[in-house]
Every structure is written in C-alpha cells, then in structure tokens.
C-alpha cells in the first residue's frame, strides 16, 4: 500500500516535471516568435539598420530563453 503510494508519487513528480517543461517552452516560443516578428518588421521598414536589429534580436532572445531555462532547470530537479 505504502509502496504503491510512493511509486505513484514518484510517477506524479515525473509527470509534473514533463508538463512544467512543456508549459515553459510554450512561453519561450511565444516570446521569441514575437521578437523575431518585430525584428523582421523593423528590417522591412529600414533595411540599413538590419545589422543592429539582428544583434538586438539575438540578445533579447537570449534573455527570454534564460527565463524558460529557469523553469526547465527547476523541473529537472523533479525527475
């Protein structure tokens, strides 16, 4: 009885880990997609600034990914 409870708890923890990582990646995908979209719009408006815009886009994507990876690192503890 106790062992089946413990096994179920461990399975639930792993399930929680997977679901958490999935939800975190949804946020990251939305964020980086928005960044990419704005960057492409800006380049379409002013092609001469495309170098600077590209740099800014890569930089901001790194921050957004940092947040998502926070969540994934936290979920990894649950495995």
């Amino acid at each position, binding site marked *: 009885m106790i062992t089946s409870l413990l096994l179920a708890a461990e399975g639930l923890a792993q399930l929680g880990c997977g679901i958490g990582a999935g939800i975190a990646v949804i946020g990251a995908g939305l964020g980086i997609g928005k960044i990419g979209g704005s960057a492409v719009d800006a380049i379409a408006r002013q092609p001469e600034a495309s170098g600077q815009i590209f740099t800014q886009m*890569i*930089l901001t994507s*790194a*921050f957004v*990914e*940092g947040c998502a*990876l*926070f969540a*994934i*690192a936290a979920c990894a503890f649950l495995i």
Partner: protein
Amino acid sequence: MKQLKSICLLLMLALLPLPLMANEQKEDGEALNIPELVLEHLADAYEWHITTIGDKHIGFDLPIIIRSSQTGEWFFCTAHTLPDGFFFNEEAHGKIYERVDGAAVRPLDLSITRNVLQIWIVVAVLLVVFLCCARWYKKHDKTDKAPGGFVGAMEMLVMMINDDVIKSSIGEKHYKKYAPYLLTVFFFIFFTNLLGLLPIFPGGSNVTGNINITFFLAVCTFLAVNLFGNREYWKDIFWPDVPVFLKAPIPIMPAIELFGVFTKPFALMIRLFANMMAGHAMILAFTCVIFLGWTLGPAMGTGLHLFSAIMLLFMNTLELLVAFVQAYVFTMLSAVFIGLAHKEHGH
C-alpha cells in the same frame, strides 16, 4: 553537375559510421540506455574516456587527490587504484566517498577531474592566443598600419567587447578598472563553450554546463559589483526613492532590492548553465538516436541515421552561435550591473 558531386560527398560523410556500426555486436543483456549515456557525458569524471573499440577502453586516468576525513592522510591514486575504505558512491553521482563507521562521508577531494583538466587546457589556449597577440603589439609601432590575419581578428573581437559592451555600460571614468575582468570572463566562457563542442580529446568536456563553474563566475560578478559599489548604489538599495510607507515601518522595498542584489547573479548562473547543458544534452541525444536506430534494424537505421546526421549538423551550428551569444550576454549583463553600481547622482 558540380553540385551533384558535392551532395554525394556530403551524403557519404553522413553515412560514414555505417561500417563501424555493422561490425559492432551488442551483447544481449546490454540495452542502450540513452538517458544514462547522456548524463554520463554531461557529468564530471575521474578519468578521460576517449573511445571504446570493441572491448578496449581508450582513455587515460586522471590523478585523484583525496584527504581522508578520518585519519587526515593524503592519498594520490587513480580511479583503478583507490585505497581501502574509499569507494565511488553511486547515489552521489559517482563521487568518492569514505566508509566511516558504516556511514558514507565525503573526504576532502582535490582531484584533477575531467573538468579541471579541460579548464587548464582552455587557460593554456587563452595564454597562447593572447600572449602572441600582445607580442605583435610590442613589436610594432603605434603608427604602423593595423594588424591583419589572426591578430587582427582577435583585435576586432576585443575592441568590439571593449567599446560596445564595457565602455558603453560602465562609462568612460571607471571602465578601465573592470575591463580586464570582463574581457577575461568573455573569452573564458567563449573558448570553454567552443572547446566543449569538439567531440574528441583536447575538447569535449562539458565545463560551463556544470553549475559549480557558473556559480563561481556568478560569485565573481557579485563581488565585482558589490565590493566596489559607490554610496549612491547602496543608498538606492536600502533607502530607495519611493514613497515612505514602502520603506519606513516595514522595509518592503529595501527587502526587495536586497533580494534583487542576489537574484541578478543567480540569474546569470542559471542562464549560462541551463543553456550550455541543454545544448550539449540535445547534441548527445541526437547522436544516441543514431545508435538506437541501428539496433532497430537496417531500415529504421538508415532513416534515423540520415535524420540525426542532419539534425546534428544543425544543432552543432546552433551551438556555435549559442556559445558566442551566452558569453556575450554574461559579459554584457555583468558590465551593466557594474555600471549600475557606479551611477553618478542625477542620472
């Protein structure tokens, strides 16, 4: 017609491991445990394993230097010649533990593990590269034309970090004090990330994906920011410019600001660690998929092999970009934090 030859060459390269896999006989009891393989490559180890041809392990043992917590005696050995009383504790990620009265105790462990050796290799590469570049500047006059070739490329990289990141974040007055630390951090992280992508000996160890390394780098940034912050900075933390009810009876805002002093380096640590570990894990997972495909039979094998080879090419290229971006972001954020600690009044 010329492109057809290049495409065929690429396909041949992609299927190169084919004959090796055809000869390999997997013993029946040994299933391919992908998570374990991936974690083993990501973790630190007491020996540097290069490859396994058939039954022979090719690699070299690294020195283990431990001091027993019970007798205080130092032991120098390798992973195959551990003295009595010490063992590799599987529950503690394979680290060396000592059996003291039935309990497992961690001795003082100063071994040269794989990550330590990799850091030394990176340090050697950094010294060679930058001392060579410095020698060029010593031999040439200020009025000569700019260097070309390798020295020119390094100068371009250093000047880009110096001007766009360090000088613009910290300001003209103070940037020279912090430029050595920030440039070192940038090139250390960049070169370590790059060497981690090489699959074979002088590279291949996952250093920045180890949270202890990134923890130390974050602590260095924490010290650089807080030990040298000016009064303006500490005043903004403990008595910020907000309405009095948020500061006086219960210091809500000062508590939040103090918390922020610790979370900013913590975020630096986690960002670098998670990015590099995730990248390495994905590359290792795609490589393991190739082996998994071949155990399922030749049809699945070829399909998964081609798919994985293309994905591996893509992932490795992405990791090259990520190596540079993560080093750049770490340096830029550290520069911004240091700049915030030296804010002039009235900005």
